[in-house]
């Protein structure tokens, strides 16, 4: 069995973003980079399945050289291979990313593909489902837990619906699943594995390697970002100033005035 896990090296702001007016891209230097939290749960689900049933686990990412770090994290935790694909000047758009992943995965033919249900930076929650569409794969989105039935070669998955409701479904492989956080406990890599992962070669692919041209990506894009700016916070909260005691006093006053006696 082969399981592919799509991962993303995401960016986060530690401080308020400092952008040029009318910026449409975030300067990558202002971001702290980490592996997307959701993807770590997806990877763990793949590794647990591998530990129990045996499988090759391939981590795949779309990103520039900085994204190698995400693949090395996956290798250190136990993935067998790391593959990165990248095209200069591509829109960071879920349909474009899905198109690149689709061409890589056509060559891999995995039995199962796991994706994080969303990324913490772009927050589209759509790349996995777009990928399933492009590969015409059966899929279950936003799942919390899964178990694999060897005889049926099928996955039973708990879909997380709104308001705490869960739908249990079954889907036959090949299939794609997008995973929510909290369904397992992502493992930590030990120091030796981290060092080994640093030396392990990664497979790096460009557009030509997967039979695509720049025009294909332009057509694949679902949207164009025209502007990025801090959201309008007018009508935002009345800020309470002062030291902890003053603030606490004011909070207690608000509480007692709002609660029925």
């Amino acid at each position, binding site marked *: 069995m082969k399981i592919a896990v799509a991962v993303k090296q995401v*960016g*986060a*702001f530690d401080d*308020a973003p400092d952008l040029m007016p009318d910026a449409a891209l*975030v300067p990558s230097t202002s971001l702290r980079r980490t592996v997307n939290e959701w993807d770590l749960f997806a990877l763990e689900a793949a590794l647990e399945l591998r530990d129990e049933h045996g499988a090759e686990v391939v981590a795949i990412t779309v990103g520039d050289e900085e994204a190698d770090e995400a693949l090395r994290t996956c290798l250190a935790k136990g993935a067998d291979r790391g593959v990165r694909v990248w095209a200069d000047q591509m829109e960071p758009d879920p*349909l474009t990313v*899905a*198109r690149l992943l689709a061409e890589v995965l056509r060559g891999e033919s995995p039995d199962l593909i796991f994706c994080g249900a969303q990324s913490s*930076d772009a*927050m*589209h*929650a*759509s*790349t996995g*489902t*777009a990928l*399933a*569409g*492009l590969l015409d794969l*059966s*899929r279950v*989105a936003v799942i919390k837990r899964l178990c694999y039935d060897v005889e049926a070669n099928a996955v039973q998955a*708990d*879909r997380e*619906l*709104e*308001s*705490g409701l869960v*739908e*249990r479904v079954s*889907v036959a492989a090949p299939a794609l699943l997008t995973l*929510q*956080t*909290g369904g397992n406990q992502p493992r930590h890599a030990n120091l030796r594995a981290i060092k080994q992962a640093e030396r392990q070669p990664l497979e790096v692919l460009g557009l030509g390697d997967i039979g695509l041209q720049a025009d294909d990506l332009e057509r694949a894009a*679902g*949207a*164009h*970002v*025209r502007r*990025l*700016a*801090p*959201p309008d*916070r007018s009508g*935002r*909260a*009345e*800020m*309470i100033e002062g030291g*902890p*005691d003053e*603030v*606490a*006093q004011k*909070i*207690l006053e*608000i*509480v007692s005035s*709002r*609660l029925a006696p």
Partner: protein
Amino acid sequence: MNPILVIAETRRGELREVTAGSIAAGNELKQASGERLIVAVVASDPDRFAPELRYEGIDEIVTVPTAYEHFEPHVAEAALESLIGELRPSVVILSHGADSLGYAAAVAARGGHGFGSDVTRVAWDGGPIVWREVYGGKLEAKLDFLGKETTIVLVRIGAFPPAAATDDTGAVRELATDLPAPRTEHLGFVEPKTDGVDITTADFLLSIGRGVGEQANVAWLEHLAERLGATISASRPVIDAGWIERSRGVGQSGKTVTPSIYLALGISGAGQHLAGIRGAGTIIAVNTDPTAPIFSIADYGVVADLFAVAAALERLTVEAPCEA
């Protein structure tokens, strides 16, 4: 003529409330574009929902019968492809919820359509324009879809106030189409556990988020809640970590709450969390990050370390010693 198409959503035989929000977003685009607004229902018995779709602005209801009782992403995907082929809408609107997330992006990718998800605002300038939050709400992106005949938009649940009700329903017609067999099998629903506490009826919630840092800090805050006469609740990261039982989780995947007071300690305010607290009376948020999105919905905000504020609250609520 390229209408605005809204997909009505049903679950367990009922029209879902999120549909009224999607129709509201559709109405904004209808008014700005001058196009018609069509609402489609894809279900095993879609006609029964038509009389319930009494919202202002609906010009026509299109029903698509399926042979399958429950939502199924591959059936829904084929139905949406048929609807787009038949109606050639300029915009398709669905909610950014668990069902839509299983197929809308697949339709967009296969069809080469425009696509934007978790959308909080819409406008029209020769075509749709949408706004959505990125980087945990620290930035807002403005998107356009130039060159796309059809754009699929998933609107954040709760971002658009429900469309106004009316006595009339639009004209109803059926779109008969061959739909594929389901590719997933429904095995059943699992109801949320309640564990004896119902945070949806609490009048005062003290809610804790990722800012609590570690499990060791939770007991103290539970004790503070008790002292303040509040019920403790939590945002998703705290629930996922298992520090507080799942029945106390607030947000789109947890509970929607309506307390008089919602005191949020260390909660940044992800969109899915804010969806669960829009009905709260007074929201007070304490967070170290002045740009946290929770401050955009809170009535009162405090930029401070939650532990310093919690310690002060604890000191102030210690019973005063008897005066000698």
